[in-house]
């Protein structure tokens, strides 16, 4: 072994140790708990018990997909406008998007409770002008709104970052070859911003599908998401084994989603290249 590779091994050591201690070990523990009972004996029980959670998983995925789609529809034009505006405006817009993230996640969600609740700001205004109050809090809509609000920056930033690097001469070249504004968007800007869109989708979908806090606070615990179920098993039911098996399935789902997204990205590029 030569000197430089020894040194690089030494330099890598802390990171490897960190990864093992805080990433690999917890994951293995999740797997261990998922396949054992309270006495530490191997069992399939926790896995078979999951059949009762089909609706919960379905709801989680559905809400997360909706939230991701809404984020994408909001972010794409915003990122485009940002990337095309002046440098000083770009900084201001970026600041406005980042600003809510300076506040704690819990406080942001509590604020939405105050806005949406039956005696909240919106309903107070509605009633003041003589309309019947609207039920907003504790609805699926409120939960999805919470997801969109909290995770929007994770969609805007990657798309913006790709778009701001897009060379404007490519747009001019497309115009030069006969593209109107719509054709430029369809044939140049969209395909070139796809990597940003895909990482944005991943970064919004993953936290949305596993969230528990948003659904508890804005959904009032009326409908459980996977995250809620996991939290319940660990925090109140003290059934680490079932909690672990739920986590394991969620993890697998996320990995599969990411693989599909990556495959989609690859094949998209491949399709154009071939």
């Amino acid at each position, binding site marked *: 072994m030569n000197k430089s590779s020894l040194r690089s091994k030494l330099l890598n050591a802390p990171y490897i140790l960190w990864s093992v201690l805080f990433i690999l070990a917890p994951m293995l523990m999740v797997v261990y708990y998922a396949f054992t009972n309270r006495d530490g004996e191997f069992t399939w029980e926790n896995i078979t018990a999951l059949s009762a959670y089909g609706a919960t998983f379905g709801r989680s995925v559905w809400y997360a997909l909706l939230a991701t789609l809404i984020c994408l529809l909001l972010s794409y034009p915003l990122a485009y406008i940002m990337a095309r505006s002046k440098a000083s405006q770009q900084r201001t817009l970026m600041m406005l998007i980042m600003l809510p993230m300076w506040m704690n996640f819990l406080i942001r969600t509590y604020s939405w409770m105050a806005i949406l609740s039956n005696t909240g700001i919106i309903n107070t205004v509605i009633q003041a002008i003589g309309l019947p109050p609207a039920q907003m809090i504790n609805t699926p809509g409120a939960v999805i709104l919470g997801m969109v609000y909290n995770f929007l920056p994770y969609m805007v930033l990657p798309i913006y970052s790709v778009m701001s690097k897009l*060379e404007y*001469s*490519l747009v*001019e*070249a*497309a*115009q*030069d*070859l*006969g*593209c*109107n504004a719509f*054709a430029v968007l369809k*044939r*140049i800007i969209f*395909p*070139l911003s796809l990597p940003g869109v895909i990482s944005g989708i991943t970064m919004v979908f993953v936290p949305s599908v596993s969230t528990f806090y948003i659904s508890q606070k804005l959904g009032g615990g009326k409908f459980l998401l996977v995250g809620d179920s996991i939290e319940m098993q660990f925090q109140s039911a003290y059934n680490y084994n079932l909690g672990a098996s739920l986590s394991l399935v969620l993890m697998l789902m996320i990995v599969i989603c990411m693989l599909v997204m990556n495959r989609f990205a690859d094949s998209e*590029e491949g399709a*154009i*290249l*071939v």
Partner: protein
Amino acid sequence: MEKNAVIIDLKNISVSFDGQQILKDLNLYIRDGEFITLLGPSGCGKTTTLRIIAGFLEPDSGEVVFEGKTMNGVPAHKRQVNTIFQRYALFPHLNVFENIAFGLRQQKKSKDEIRKTVEEMLALVNLKGFEKRNIASLSGGQQQRVAIARALAVKPRVLLLDEPLGALDLKLRKDMQAELKNIQQRLGITFIYVTHDQEEALSMSDTIVVMDSGEIQQIGSPTDIYNEPKNAFVADFIGESNILDGIMHADFSVEFQGMKFRCVDKGFGKDEPVDVVVRPEDVDIVAPEAGMLRGTVTSVTFKGVHYEIIVDIDGFKWMIQTTDYSAVGDKIGICIKPEEIQVMHKSVYSGLYGDYSSFSEEFDELSDPIPTAESDEAAEE
């Protein structure tokens, strides 16, 4: 359309950005089938002129006429001109075939027609068999060829080229110059070529438009521009030149460096102060007693084909290119034939370009406008 008819006419074009005037009342017409070059230092407005023709930029005032029809307000995608961009602007997500087919697909051409045209274009630019290649895997020269093929595939009436060879190395640049000229002659379409490289302009163009500070300094054939520069700027920018203060006493008689010379210029006022240009290769070295002017050699550089000699004549340092060797310190005489003397009216550029007293190769390169895309954009955007 008949050959030599005017295809593009720019009338009184003015443009300014942020209070800085980029083009000042520019008038220029371009004939069909012509290879015309806009030549000038960076920031002179040549790229801006090209962008106005392409439709990427609307002039503040003035008219752009294409085959008799006003083009003001017509967007780029509806104009029959195509551009080859400075850094090619090839689409990185498409392969070579799809890049070239891009404009044809937009025109909704049939599959067979697209395939046929792309093949023709690839043959034209010597890139047969490159259809499936990724843009990123191509060399600079190959990318340049794809850019040419892409622009020509849609059969434009006029091709605009914005410093297309700027990113290539010298050898490749020479090859591409010949190839571009060849393509232009074969297809017979109008080329409007923008460059800061005078040699490129001289060797490729039918017509050269020399520009500076947003104004046209001179329009003419390469030989006209070189042999009969209109002012000190053109004389200095194109090739090497000795630019002297002179007085035109009468037709065919000019005085400089205290000597009267016969020349072939006329039509100046009596005793009008003028600028006189003598090209370094047009000066003959003779024995001191036989010379019209006498001086001392201060520097000699061997250039391969010739020597470049700096001669101090009464304080003015001349550059002379000659195949005869002289040593530093030699006293020599020089002779200039009447037809080698070019007399010009005084202009705002008079006196800006001195003699070769501070001359060195490095200095010359440093003071040359460096044609980076950034500085061009900064100046012209």
